[in-house]
């Protein structure tokens, strides 16, 4: 009769062979984390001292009930529409910026790259266009808005331009990448047989990636709605500006009403974008 291995199995199961190294890793992370805690003055006990608790409590208690008189609701609806409109107009502007940049930057439409490595001048031009897109999108939209508020004054113009510039850079980059990820055969066949670049794009590359391009644009529209709320905080109008002024006046009922509308708006744009993208796929 064979001896039963059961007790041994049990002892293996109880012991984690990598236990020491796991604890060492946790300890190392904790040590590395300490400077971060110091730098961010991270001291959550501030939240719980009596004075701040009292003012927070008063503010949160005033959230209920959300303000719902007709005048305020009307204003709220108006600002909600402005938020959506800023996002939509901004994204339209972004498209106008992105399409030429992407068509110029995409190597798929290069004639000189058909037979040999791309010639020097087209390569330089494409690099310049790519660098432009990096520059446009590496400055956050809030910063663009802050700058443009100084130039065009408070109001939606600054918000539309800020979204247009940042999202123009993002859309341009992604459009160029989507075009370059398409199957090269149709485009190249057209270009080799003497069609122009625009024809090669319309009949070779675009039919393959139209759905993907549209679905990415719709996703960005959803992001732009969130961004346009944030832009309100620097004076670009819409729900953000309303929320900022209500929070500064500690009027909790207004804040909670705006937050509710805002959460509903984000959820709705989320849903619309998901439905549209599913329809495209």
């Amino acid at each position: 009769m064979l001896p039963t291995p059961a007790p041994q199995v049990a002892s293996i199961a109880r012991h984690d062979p990598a236990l020491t190294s796991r604890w060492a890793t946790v300890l190392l992370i904790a040590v590395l984390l300490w400077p971060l805690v110091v730098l961010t003055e991270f001291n959550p006990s501030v939240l719980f001292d009596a004075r701040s608790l009292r003012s927070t409590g008063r503010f949160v208690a005033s959230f209920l009930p959300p303000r719902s008189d007709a005048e305020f609701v009307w204003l709220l609806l108006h600002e909600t529409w402005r938020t959506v409109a800023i996002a939509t107009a901004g994204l339209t502007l972004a498209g106008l910026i992105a399409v030429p940049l992407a068509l110029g930057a995409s190597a798929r439409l290069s004639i000189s790259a058909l037979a040999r490595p791309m010639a020097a001048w087209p390569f330089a031009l494409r690099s310049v266009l790519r660098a432009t897109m990096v520059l446009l999108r590496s400055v956050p939209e809030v910063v663009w808005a802050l700058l443009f508020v100084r130039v065009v004054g408070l109001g939606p113009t600054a918000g539309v331009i800020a979204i247009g510039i940042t999202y123009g850079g993002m859309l341009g980059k992604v459009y160029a990448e989507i075009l370059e990820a398409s199957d090269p055969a149709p485009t190249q066949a057209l270009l080799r047989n003497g069609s122009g670049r625009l024809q090669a794009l319309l009949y070779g590359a675009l039919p393959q990636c139209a759905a993907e391009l549209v679905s990415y644009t719709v996703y960005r529209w959803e992001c732009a709605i969130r961004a346009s709320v944030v832009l309100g905080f620097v004076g670009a109008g819409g729900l953000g500006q309303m929320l900022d002024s209500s929070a500064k006046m500690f009027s909790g009922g207004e804040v909670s009403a705006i937050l509710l509308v805002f959460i509903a708006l984000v959820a709705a744009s989320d849903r619309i974008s998901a439905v549209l993208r599913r329809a495209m796929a």
Partner: protein
Amino acid sequence: MNTPKPLTPPPARHAARWMGLGIGVLVVLSFATLELRWSEFLSAGAVRDMGRFAASFFPPETSSAFLKRTLDATLETLAMSLLGTLLAALGGIALALPASARGHENARPAAAARLLRLLTRGALNVLRSVPELVWASLLLIAAGLGPLPGTLALALHTTGVLGRLFAESIENAPSEPAFALRVRGIGAVRVFLFATLPQIWPQVIAYTLYRWENNIRAAAVLGVVGAGGLGQMLYYHLGLFQTHESCTVLAAMVALVALVDALSFATRRWLSR
């Protein structure tokens, strides 16, 4: 003589036409209802003003005292983004567990578990749909000015995003290893640590790195509501029209974002070797 029925367009094209029409109406209405001041923006005078405004940023301020302050703010921004993302990763895992439909593959979950799942999913949605900047402006009341509300704001919003992504990862991971441990009577914590976590670990790392890249951008601008870091410096100096100082801060912001992108890219490469 019977005429052939006219061809109807395929349903997909039909839908696309309605969609195109809807988008067109939305765009036209947006431009029509916003009081956009293009004339002011594009007139010769405005272009000249803008040129003068842009030129006034150069040269950037480079006195060593100011560079030191910018460096401090840069480090503060970096620390805010790192700590906020880490807290969010922990919070995300903690909320993803009750929010995922795990451990009930065969039986219908108990009413309490379903209620908990609904509640945590709702909480994640609310956390996620309020942007960092809005969280920061609300937290200022509880936490005062400085990097603390900024860090917490990043952590709250990112918890919502990561929690949802982690919950999806947990649901998509194969359930057999967890089941094998559970039938041997091993407790929930150890089942999670030794069966579920190792499976979702690569995704946890990838999503967390991706959010870190997003959060460094967010951390850089959180300061405009007074939540510390480079944004607060930019807001202050731009407000006083000290454009040379603003230029230095802007350069630091762009450099920091580029650095984090490169670091995150390198980490991802290193992890996926």
